[in-house]
């Protein structure tokens, strides 16, 4: 059973957002890392870039394939997790913790209301894996 923390917001593309004040931290879900398999490469954007919700912000690559990462919220990127360059397998081991991918200064705090909560995301993953 995939791990789905209660305090996060989830997108249909399997990214999560943790909101603290006007900062959103973004990563991919346990379900996503499990589906992707061994993560061998993570490509992240530059700090200072502004990005709109739904845009591609980077790539995560498993042995098998490269996959786009979609940002669930709009804003300016304030920080990226550069430890993932050398240690991409953290995404498999700790997708909600050590493998956070980037932080954004939220442009519109209301955007997260359009995302799913943990219960809704759990239903969603069940539905698509049936």
């Amino acid at each position, binding site marked *: 059973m995939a791990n789905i923390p209660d305090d996060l917001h989830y997108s249909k593309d399997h990214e999560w957002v943790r909101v603290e004040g006007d900062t959103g931290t973004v990563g991919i879900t346990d379900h996503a890392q499990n*589906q992707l*398999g*061994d993560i*061998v*490469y993570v*490509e992240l954007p530059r700090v200072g870039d502004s990005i709109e919700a739904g845009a591609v912000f980077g*790539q995560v*690559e*498993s*042995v*098998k*394939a*490269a996959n786009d990462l979609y940002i669930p919220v709009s804003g300016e990127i304030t920080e990226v997790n550069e430890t993932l*360059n050398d240690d991409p397998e953290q995404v498999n081991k700790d997708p909600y913790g050590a493998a956070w991918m980037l932080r954004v200064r939220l442009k519109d705090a209301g955007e997260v209301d359009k995302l799913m909560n943990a219960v809704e995301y759990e239903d969603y993953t069940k539905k*698509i894996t049936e």
Partner: protein
Amino acid sequence: MTTAPTPLKQTPLNAAHRRLGGRMVDFGGWDMPVQYPAGTVEEHLRTRLHSGLFDVSHMGEIEVRGSDAIAFVNRLCSNDATKLVDGQAQYSALTTPEGTVVDDLLVYRFAEDHLLLVVNASTTEKDWDWINAHRGDETLTLTNRSADFCQIAVQGPDALGILQTLTETPLAEIKYYHFREGTVDGVPAIISRTGYTGEDGFEVYAAPDKAEQLWDRLLGAGGHGTPEGILPCGLAARNTLRLESAMALYGHEIDETTTLYEANLGWICKLNKGDFNGRERLAQQKAEGVQQKLVGFEVTERGIARDGYDVLINGEKVGRVTSGSPAPYLKKNIGLAYVPAAHATEGLEIHVVVRDRPVAARIVPVPFYKRERKASQ
């Protein structure tokens, strides 16, 4: 996710894959495990270091029987089937009149008048039609026996020892690319010392209703669940293992647009054996030289080359990646690509375009990985 227009085909091991937690994907119309919970890297490494178990029951089998069986196969395929002896297998290709590839296959000789062609899953129907359409006045019977076999590959340095616990056939006596008919766990089987991983190992063909029995017994005999025990391996590991060994994959390195010489498969192109489909064109290409050539490369900057990415030399687009992936055992990012023959030089720097960004790579000798062979293999 969405309802498929046509139901996926299943091998007799479909339920076994699901019980083992295999992640199932649509592979050319077949519902196959891409990986199991151990993951592709672990499956790959376990096969290199110990053993891996693969369901390859989706492969097609076409039986050719009759007094002209060898002559017929020799006319359609590029390698020389007359060189086979009973109990021997040969890598070959079904060729078009242009010298390109309808499919690559193994030709098994059971007797002078009895051959079995083992072909790719996604091309089985095409091959069957092609072979039938190219029948002449030869005396022979063709039978599509794809549904009559399961095929299980046990691969890796421990493969022989594991399989030997289930059969009285003395496996060490079977030479590479040879086979015997015997029993495995009491089940009548063809035991073939072949594979697609670059390791020593065997492919076992048996009746499909015995597939689960053989699969489970091989997992048990191989110590599945122990740290160095056998692991079931999915299609992703099968692909990375064959890529490290630089073996061609139909639809990637070879297809009906690439010739055998371009794909470095001149060694299965026996121009002097007599006429066969494409011989004239292949002889001409051998004499004139090829325009493009398949090469191996290693990515030297950060980035992973993938199938279909463009290849640049001196900033100009000159070719494409046919297969690209991280190589779990070599711990490099590698690939195969077609480049103009004039540039097919070991050591040459090329660039692979990864999401609009040229990433440096270097042409290297293939295979990327070669196991140390014992004298008996």
